[in-house]
């Protein structure tokens, strides 16, 4: 349900941003996310930014893994 991809905001004009997906650019609507600045990463679905995400999402995952496994029941 719903392919969404993070990309880096490289320019903003009104409620539209130019977003880079590893160097491929697409115009993205920013209406649904507040306070986005150039350099931010946004999660984009169907041409709309739906969330601002941290540049290194993996860190959170690693953190959570250690929580899951850190639990010593097994």
């Amino acid at each position, binding site marked *: 349900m719903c392919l969404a991809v993070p990309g880096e905001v490289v320019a903003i004009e009104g409620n539209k941003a130019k977003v880079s997906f590893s160097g491929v*650019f*697409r115009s993205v609507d920013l209406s649904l996310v507040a306070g986005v600045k150039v350099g931010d990463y946004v999660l984009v679905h169907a041409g709309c930014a739906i969330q601002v995400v941290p540049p290194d999402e993996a860190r959170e995952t690693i953190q959570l893994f250690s929580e899951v496994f850190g639990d010593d029941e097994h």
Partner: protein
Amino acid sequence: MNGKIRLAEGGGGEATASLIRELFWSRFRHPQLLRGNDAAVLEHAGGRLALTTDAFVVTPWRFPGGDIGRLAIAGTVNDLTMMGAAALGLTAAFIIEEGFDKSDLEQIAASMAAAAAEAGVDLVAGDTKVVRKGEADGIFITTTGVGTIAPGVRLGGELARPGDRVLVTGTLGDHGAAILLAREELGLSGALQSDVAPLNRLLLPLVGEYPGAIRVLRDPTRGGLATTLNEIARQSGVAIRLREAAIPVRPEVRGLTELLGLDPLYLANEGKALLVVAPEAADAILAALRRQPRGSRAAEVGEVLAGNAGLVSLVTASGGERIIPLGSGEQLPRIC
């Protein structure tokens, strides 16, 4: 056969294969046609000739890194190259839509000439047709090449053997991604470029240098690496296993395919080849490729296995394994 032709039947995947089988193989029984290689090999008094033809219909006709003219020359030179054949001559047949800009036509002719010079091949015959406005999409070019195969050279999709290694000459998906980028309706931009290039100067010397060790040479065009490997696996009755981590893909191509929900393994390449080589020669050939500018990002991406004839699979970066099936036609951007 009933029904109507679908776009998918020109996509180079299973649909195209089955259309061709039903329509042509049932009627034209020449063994070379049935073999399904990049070019037919004809024996005659003076030795072996390779013969190949392709219609180029790319939309848009001009794209980052090239145009339909460069593509038409490179595509045909490459199909000859994949048979180990040196071009004797090329022909080009143009179908042009009434109203096409002459200055654009000039640009296409110029880039054909430049590509031919780059490859060191000659255009020796041509044909030009003009159809009514609305009866073609700007311009279509069919190029055909005839080449000579040196004695002793034997290449073919049916020659892969268990233990062989699969090499690619560089990054994958560049051409297909550049075309998607050039299609206005998707609203994409970027510095990504098609890889379209003739490969004869990169590969023909290697074919001469490693007789027997290079089993298969293929250019993974329409349908990409996935489709081409499936064809080889079927032709040779072997399995092929790729290593995802080893497959070179440019970040921009990765970005574009993730955005549109596509797979770079199914995107067309127009300046890359895949080689199936004997294991003992793999390192040397890879090193030789990497010494050339057009092969600098060459990589060993997989190996040929016995059993499971026709199966292509991939070991993922996270250690999982999945099947790489023959594609099913048109690559449609996905929402989900």
